[in-house]
């Protein structure tokens, strides 16, 4: 029950970040999702990532659509403004919000029904516009809130809890994001916090459209044998290409890895993405190669995870639209109205 208040007591030894905030300061209301739901792990990873980055919670806006995943923004970052929009339409609302105030960090949380079915159009267009955002799909292959219907990301041949076989081809959101020009693309697993937290940190500090597909098993409706989105299946088929460290700006850089095993990518804010390669042949800076790799491995039933693609010097929608640095929501009549004298000239042109 979300209106049950959480106790505000902090353990005195909880570690603090640069803002003197503990992880508790990044929490939200108590989750109402099922015990063991992958989404709660993702919420915890978001909390951890924001705490580690020492983000000011109120400088982040969290938006979502409708569904189990879209309920989660209420369960983290209680000091951030949140917006639970309409089904499948979070991307457009986030785009508008981003246009209104470019200074905030925008986190969009969605599900596979929300983004791959009803909101497919908005998902692809927000990605191709390069909206500066972190877009997380909590992907469980199933409609949870309406009790277990297949979603569009369910693999062909996988079975529902009742044994129905899914005949339709799956939509691969990572493949779409890569093809549509997302400048930071990753996939992870809700059960692998060590991999997920840095991926979220990298996405939050990335300028441009950052997309994370996080497989997040639904314990109520899609965690059985025959599902390809179960804990067991993903653990058995997880094919991580790399491990990521996000190194904050101005941090001392200690080189303790052999050349060829790590790649450093410097981001616009001076932070570094340090990629430790697991598959030595994988280059996360090559979009086409990433698309090939992901497709080939997926065809073998593997779930490719890690930071799959990054373009550090990406441009965002504001750059494309050449907007002023001042957030629009601070501009007033003096800056926006051309004035009566200009209107007199405009009138003269209409005679």
């Amino acid at each position, binding site marked *: 029950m*979300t*209106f049950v208040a959480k106790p505000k007591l902090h353990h005195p030894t909880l570690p603090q970040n640069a803002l003197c905030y503990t992880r508790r300061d990044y929490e939200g209301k108590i989750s109402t999702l099922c015990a063991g739901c992958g989404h709660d792990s993702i919420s915890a990873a978001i909390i951890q990532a924001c705490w580690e980055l020492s983000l*000011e*919670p*109120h*400088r982040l*806006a969290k*938006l979502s659509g409708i569904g189990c995943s879209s309920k989660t*923004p*209420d369960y983290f970052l*209680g*000091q*951030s*403004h*949140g*917006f*639970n*929009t*309409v089904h499948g*339409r979070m*991307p*457009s*609302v986030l*785009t*508008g*919000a*981003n*246009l*209104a*105030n470019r*200074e*905030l960090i925008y986190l969009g949380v969605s599900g596979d029904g929300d983004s791959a079915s009803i909101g497919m*159009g*908005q998902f692809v*267009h927000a990605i191709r*516009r390069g909206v500066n955002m972190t877009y997380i799909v909590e992907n469980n292959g199933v409609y949870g809130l309406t009790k277990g219907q297949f979603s569009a990301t369910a693999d062909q041949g996988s079975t529902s809890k009742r044994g129905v076989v899914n005949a339709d081809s799956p939509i691969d959101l990572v493949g779409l994001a890569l093809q549509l020009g997302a400048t930071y693309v990753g996939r992870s697993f809700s059960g692998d916090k060590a991999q997920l937290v840095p991926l979220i940190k990298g996405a939050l500090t990335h300028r441009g459209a950052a997309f994370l597909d996080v497989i997040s098993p639904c314990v109520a409706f899609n965690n059985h044998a025959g599902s390809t989105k179960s804990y067991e299946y993903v653990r058995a088929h997880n094919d991580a290409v790399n491990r990521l460290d996000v190194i904050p700006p101005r941090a001392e850089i200690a080189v303790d890895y052999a050349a060829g095993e790590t790649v450093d990518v410097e981001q616009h804010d001076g932070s570094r993405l340090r990629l430790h390669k697991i598959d030595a042949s994988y280059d996360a800076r090559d979009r086409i190669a990433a698309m090939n790799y992901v497709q080939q491995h997926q065809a073998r039933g593997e779930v490719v995870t890690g930071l799959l693609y990054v373009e550090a010097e990406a441009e965002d929608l*504001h750059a494309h*639209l*050449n*907007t*002023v*640095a001042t*957030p*629009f*929501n601070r*501009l*007033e*009549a003096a*800056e*926006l*109205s*051309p*004035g*009566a004298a200009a*209107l*007199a000239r*405009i*009138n003269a042109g*209409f*005679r």
Partner: protein
Amino acid sequence: MATVREETAAAAPAPLSAVNDFVIKFANVNGSGSASANELFAKSILRMGVPVSPRNIFPSNIQGLPTWYEVRVNERGWLGRRGGVDLMVAMNPQTWDADLAEIEPGGYLFYDSTKPLPRSKFRSDIQVIGVPLTQICSEHYTVARERQLFKNIMYIGALSALLEVDPDAIEKLLAEQYRGKEKLLDANKQAFHLGRRYVLDNLPHPIGLRVRHADGVGERIFVDGNTAAALGCVYGGATVCAWYPITPSSSLAEAFQKYCMKYRVDPATGANKFAIVQAEDEIASIGMVVGAGWNGARAFTTTSGPGISLMNEFIGLAYFAEIPVTIIDVQRGGPSTGMPTRTQQSDVLACAYASHGDTKHVLLLPEDPTECFEFAAAALDLADRLQTPVFVLSDLDIGMNQRLCAPLAWDDARVYDRGKVMTAEELEAGKEFGRYKDVDGDGIPYRTYPGTHPTRGAYFTRGTSRDPYARYSERGPDYVYNMERLLHKFDTARNLVPAPLLRSAATPARFGAIYYGSTSPAMAEAIALLEQEGLALDTLRVRGFPFADSVRAFIEAHEAVYVVEQNRDAQLRSLLVNEFGIDPARVPAVLHYDGTPITARFIARAIGERLRTADAAQTSRAGAR
């Protein structure tokens, strides 16, 4: 049919004779370049100080289908459609028969006489003026496209001689239009004089219809409603425009772009103080507007009926979550694709009650481009003040036709009304914040912009039920509190929307009429026509919804009030009946919905018949007593 036969059998009627008061209609093929020539004609009469009101009647097509341009010339200043045509410029063989049939008895037909036509193709009760335009063009131009294009300016030249339109006014306009393009200017001037010379040398001139210099235009401007509404958005401080192309609203977004490029680029940095996104559909358009409004920027979208249909879910969210949204709906003929290039007022109910669930929305109803400008800017203020969607219901007739109207005005002292926004200072000082709490008794709560304060004022926005502190709640009393407050807020809007305008007849009137939007100019003329017949009618122009109490008082003060609209189902009337709970019999409908703008004659005939019947009934009752 009987009357028609009688007319044709009788001696040909005398040629129509009128100075500064006639209707001329150009029948063209679209894509042939006629539009700019026709506009030139209309503007040249304006420059002579004579009010004109032109209307494009065009197809949903780029090239090859029939298109018309009807110009009302009227020194008294009637700007609505009168009905009937005095002079037809028939340049389209496809529509010849229908075009000829429209000409008033005694009226004039102007046509290209290059190819002889059989007598049977003409009417005996009209004056026929033939100018061999194609032949003249062929003699003077070799390029096929030039032969086509210059035919248009050539008939303007011929008309200038026939109607005594001042050639200097036309030459001046041409010079303005082709400033810096001297070759084009000279070619156009030549074509103009070729047409003019032909009439002066070969035909009786002038004809019975003439234009004389007058002083009927004054300071007024000549502009279309979409351009004016776009300027209203620029002046009103809109920074985000998200839209999807749809006739007849696209030119509004394009005009917004044009004026932003001119007036909203920071001279120091070259950066834009605006963002225009052509969205993937109308759902995304309204979604972006909702997101921007939530985050404190002034945002609008412009669309037409089909777009409104798609936006419904978001409109409900914005109503319930209380987010400022401005929607300019340039209405067209519906339902479905309907008549996409014809005009109607048929989105009134769809907008007033848009979305599932219990909703009511604020509507602003402009009558002309001046009000499009004022109401667009006002809508941005009202949306912020009321934290709700606000609709400006324009239509194709206002939006896409140039109209003579009052100059646009802006007071530099005007500040934007950003509504109830709690600041970081107020939060820091400990002012209580309940996002959905009615603190001031007007139903309007306070809001905060995201990012305002590190630890206070954050809230979770949702379309789901919640308590006054924005906490999720499925409790009945919380839901009812909220819905009642929204109703109370709507009542607050009643006195914030533009007030209705009352016009009382010179003598006490038993009957009244309510009208709105683009019906306005035809209505003004219809009242005068009825007065000439001794029929008195009080009128009320409704300019906003929720309706002011004076609208109810007006209805109650008359035996019956005719509600004049341009839709089939009497939508505003339904709104009046529903909102005031009045007897439908008190508000009979007068409806015009064939896609063409309503005419003064139509209104005068429809209401006149009923007023005469009512008068006769009263007289007979009095006689019986």
